C-alpha cells in the first residue's frame, strides 16, 4: 500500500489474531523489539530529561545520572523553558505558527480549485498543463532559492511572512494539485451531473460537494505540508533570514542556539522540546492522516 491517501489498509488477518496471546517461543522477538525500542527512544528521552534539569546539571553531568536522584525535587526545574521562551522562543513559536498556518491553507485552496478544473472542467491545454504540473514535482527546492531571493530583494519583501507563505505555496503546489486531482477525478461523475441538473454551478458543486467529499486527501496533504513547513529550516533561513530576530521561526532559532555551542548547551534541550511539541501533538492526534500524507509524499522532489 503505497501512496494512496484514501484507501483503507487491507486487513488479511483472521478476526481472532493468534498474535494476541503471549507465547514463550516468541520471547526472542520481544527481547529484540525491546532492545530496538530502547535504542530508538534513548536520544529523544535524553533530550526530554535534560530539558528539565538545572543548567549546571546539564553542563556538569550526563542526563542518565538523574536515575540516581529521580525523586530529588531539587534536580528538576522549568528554568530552561522559562529562559528559552524569554530569549525569543515564545516569539519564534508565534512566528512558526504565523508562517505555517497560511502556508498550509493557501496551497490547499489554490490547489483544490486547480485540481477541480483539471478533473471536471474542459479547457484548451488541460492535458499538457496537468503534465507540466506533475513534471514540476521533480524540481528540488534548492533550484529555486537564488532566483526567487533576487526577485524578493528587488521587491523589498525578503524577511516578510507573505513572501514565505507564497514560496511554500509554490513548492507545495505540484504535489497538492496532483494528489487532489487524482482524488477528485475518481469521484463518480453521476454525482456532479445530478448536482448540475439541480441547478448548481461549478462554484457551488466545488464548495458544497467536492470539498466535503475530498476531506481525507485534504487532511493527508495538510498534515504533510504542516510538517514540511513547521520543520523547514532552509526556506525560513533564506527568505525570513536571521537578520531580523523578530521574524525568525523555531528551527532558525534552534539552529542559532546550536551554533552557540557549549555556552548554550543548557538551553538546547528545552529549545528543541519547544520546537517539537506541536508536530508531536499532530503526530499523536492525527497519526492516520500523517501516515497517509507521508506515503503520498513519496512522489515529491
Amino acid at each position, binding site marked *: 500500500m503505497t501512496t494512496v491517501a484514501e484507501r483503507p489498509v487491507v486487513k488479511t488477518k483472521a478476526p481472532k489474531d493468534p498474535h494476541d496471546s503471549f507465547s514463550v517461543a516468541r520471547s526472542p522477538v520481544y527481547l529484540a523489539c525491546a532492545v530496538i525500542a530502547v535504542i530508538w527512544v534513548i*536520544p529523544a528521552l535524553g533530550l526530554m530529561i535534560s530539558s528539565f534539569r538545572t543548567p549546571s546539571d546539564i553542563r556538569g553531568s550526563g542526563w542518565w545520572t538523574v536515575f540516581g536522584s529521580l525523586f530529588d525535587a531539587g534536580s528538576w526545574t522549568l528554568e530552561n523553558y522559562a529562559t528559552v521562551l524569554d530569549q525569543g522562543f515564545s516569539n519564534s513559536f508565534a512566528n512558526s505558527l*504565523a508562517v505555517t498556518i497560511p502556508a498550509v491553507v493557501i496551497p490547499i485552496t489554490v490547489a483544490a480549485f486547480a485540481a477541480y478544473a483539471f478533473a471536471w472542467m474542459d479547457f484548451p491545454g*488541460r492535458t499538457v498543463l496537468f503534465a507540466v504540473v506533475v513534471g514540476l514535482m521533480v524540481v*528540488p527546492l534548492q533550484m529555486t532559492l*537564488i532566483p526567487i531571493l533576487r526577485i524578493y530583494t528587488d521587491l523589498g519583501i525578503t524577511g516578510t511572512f507573505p513572501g514565505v507563505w507564497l514560496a511554500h505555496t509554490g513548492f507545495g503546489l505540484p504535489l497538492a494539485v496532483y494528489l487532489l486531482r487524482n482524488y477528485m477525478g475518481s469521484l463518480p461523475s453521476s454525482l456532479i451531473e445530478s448536482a448540475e441538473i439541480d441547478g448548481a454551478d461549478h462554484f457551488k458543486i466545488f464548495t458544497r460537494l467536492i470539498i466535503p467529499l475530498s476531506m481525507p486527501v485534504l487532511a493527508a496533504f495538510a498534515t504533510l505540508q504542516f510538517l514540511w513547513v513547521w520543520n523547514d529550516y*532552509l526556506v525560513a533561513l533564506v527568505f525570513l533570514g536571521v537578520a531580523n530576530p523578530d521574524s525568525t521561526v523555531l528551527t532558525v532559532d534552534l539552529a542559532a542556539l546550536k551554533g552557540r555551542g557549549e555556552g548554550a548547551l543548557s538551553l538546547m534541550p528545552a529549545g528543541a522540546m519547544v520546537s517539537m511539541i506541536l508536530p508531536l501533538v499532530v503526530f499523536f492526534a492525527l497519526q492516520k492522516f500523517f*501516515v497517509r500524507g507521508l506515503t503520498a509524499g513519496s512522489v515529491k522532489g
Partner: protein
Amino acid sequence: MTTPPVLRDDEVEVSHPHGQPGSHDNSPQVWLLRILSALVVPAVLGLFFFTFGFLQDPDTNKIVQIVVAIIVGVGGVWLLFWAMDRLVSLLPERAGAGVRPFVFAGPALILLGFYLVYPTIDTIITSLRDRSGETFVGLDNYVLIFTQGPYLEALRNSFVWAVIVPVACVVLGLAVATLADLLPRKTESTFKSLIFLPMAVSFVGASVVFTFIYNFRPEGFGAQIGLLNAIVSAFGGSPVDWLRMPVWNNLFLMVILIWTQTGFAMVILSSAIKGVPDDLLEAARIDGANEWQVFRRITVPTIASTIVVVWTTILITTWKVYDIVAVMTGGRDGTSVVAERMVTEFFTFENDGVGAALAVVLLVLVTPILVINIRRFREQEATR
C-alpha cells in the same frame, strides 16, 4: 469509477459533462480574459500582502499580526476565488464557460510558473555564468565541480550518503516491521509509534538531540555528557571527538538521518507486509519452509515494489539533506554534501555560478528517480 490518473485527449468528451460550448472558443478576446482571470488572484494576493506594512512591522502586536495573517491567508484566498467566479458569471454565457476554468486553475499555474518554472530556467542559465553572473563561461562551473577538491568531496560524500542511508533505513525498517508483526496488536502499535516518532522531529531538532549523544570534552575537562563518550570512558577508553573524526564523522551524521527516516520505511513496509496473503505464507510453511525462507522467498518478493518506493523516497531525501550537515558541522572536517555546499557557495562565498551548477547536479540526480516514482504511483492508481 476509476479515472485514469493521466488525462488522455480522447477522454475529454466522455467523462466531462461540463464541456459546454464555448470552452474551446479560442478567440483572442477569450484568451486575454483567461490570462487576466488567472493573474488576478496571485496579483491581488501579492499586492494585499505586501502593501500591508504592519504585517511585517515588529511594533505591531504579535497576536494581532498572526490573526490578521491567518484571516487574510485563509479567508482572503477563498474570497478572491469567489469574487472572480462572480465576475466571470457576469460575462456572456459562452465567454464565461471559456474563462471559468482559468479562474480555477490559473492561479496555481501562475504561482508554479513564478516559483518553479522561472527559477529552474534561471538557475540553469546562472550555472553557465561566472560567480557574479556577468560573463558567460560555458561549462566551466561544471568542470570545476567535477575536478576541484572541495566539490569532489561534497559529491563523494553525497554519494556515500545516498548509498548508505536509504539501504540502512530499508533494512532496519523491514526488520522492525517484520518483528512488530509478531507482537500482540497493542504492543505492536505502541512499538511502531516509538520508532515512527522521530519522523515528526525537524532535522534541526534531531541534530540537537544527537548533540547529547556525540558531545565531546577532552580528558580532564569535566564529565562526558555525550552518551557515546560516557560509554567509551566507562570502558576505560579516551573520549573521541566523533564529529571531527575523519571519514567516520560522515557516518555519525548519517545516523541522525537514519534515526528519523527508519520509522517512515517501517510504517510503509509494515502495511505492505500485512497485505501479503496469509494462504501464500501458510502454503510455504506446509511445504516445509522455515520462517527465514518464508520471509526471504515469499514476503520480500511480494513487497518488492513497495521496497523500491521506500528506497527511492529516502534516497531523494538523502540527496537533498542540508539541515543536518549545516547545523552539526557546517560541512567542516570533510563532511560537506552537495545540498549544503550549494548553500555555502551562494551565501558564504557568493559564487552564484558554482552554487547554481551544484543545484543543477542535484536536479539531474533526483529527476530519474522521481520519474520512476511518479510512474509507479500512476500504475498503482490505474489498477486500483
